[in-house]
């Protein structure tokens, strides 16, 4: 069970670590600050509670840059 992570120009295939793995858990694993990114699942914007499923393409868009 895996998904594709697209972050800027980087594209990688990652294992889904456990069942009901959410966008929120992914953000925590990647140590991304809360609310500074928008997540798209299969090209649709989704919320933190969304579960990542086998074959999904998850795109990360940074919207806040601090300062």
């Amino acid at each position, binding site marked *: 069970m895996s998904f594709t992570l697209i972050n800027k120009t980087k594209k990688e295939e990652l294992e889904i670590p456990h069942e009901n793995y959410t966008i929120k858990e992914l953000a925590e694993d990647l140590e991304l*600050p*809360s*609310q*500074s990114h*928008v997540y798209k699942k299969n090209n*649709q*914007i*989704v*919320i*933190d*509670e969304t579960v990542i499923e086998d074959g999904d393409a998850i795109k990360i*868009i*940074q*919207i*806040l*840059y*601090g*300062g």
Partner: protein
Amino acid sequence: MKCSKCGNPNVIIKKEQSGQYLCKDCFIESIEKKAIKTVRKEKMLDKGDKVLVALSGGKDSVTVLEVLDSFRKLNIIDLCAVTIDEGIAGYRQEGVDIAIRHAERLGIEHRIVSFKDEFGITLDEIMNSNPSKGSCTYCGVFRRAILNKAARDMGATKIATGQNLDDEVQGILMNYLEGNIDNLTKLGPKTTSKSEKFTVKIKPLREIPEHEIGLYVVAKELEVHFAGCPYAQQSFRGEVSQLINNLSENHPTIKYSTLRGYDKIREVVKEEFKKEYTVSRCERCGEPSANKLCRACVFLEEFGR
């Protein structure tokens, strides 16, 4: 979960402060309604105004342009835009290009003004000269000077900037923490001056959180320049922003309550700490100034320009 307004199952935000879920269309509508409500509540616009948008090409200024364009389409106001090129290598050009495309898309008058052309020095050159102050101080003073001058040249009656809720709250806390009550009194939805040479400034996005503006431009597929100013991390504003965002994790309404609290005391503080001074002209450049030299010229003399 479903959209709390229309029942659409494709939700794009859960509003932490209200628990409300919204789909893309309802979210876009909510942001535009909120900004329009702020404009009306604070009486930011008068019929026939020509509004100059300070258009960097970033998410905030593009959103301001989008919101104000709805007033232009109703023939309430006219719009124009100015993009400031501070001279930050590897950062600014993309925003300038995006700003050009938005101005062309809407068919509005647009000017690009650079620090180099206007003052003979770029922000990079300033920061490489071991200056006495932080980057944001110089940048803010020079940007304001350019916007005021451009507004007069283009016949604009208002200047609209993209300050969002986060920016306003940072400003309130920064000035309070530094004991700068004079600057604290200058914040607010609409800033005016005694001198007619200073154009009224308005902030239509001041009640919208920064991350919602980011989500708005992504949802509406607006082209924006997503990047951080390379000098931002050096600033006190960056530290204050971090502090407020940390507090917001467990207190999601804290930015709104800080702004509401400030708005309640704003007029009293303004009245209590109002300064009597005469606005004359800067001896060097002729721009309005309470002192012999305006702040921009004081800085330019520091750099031998």
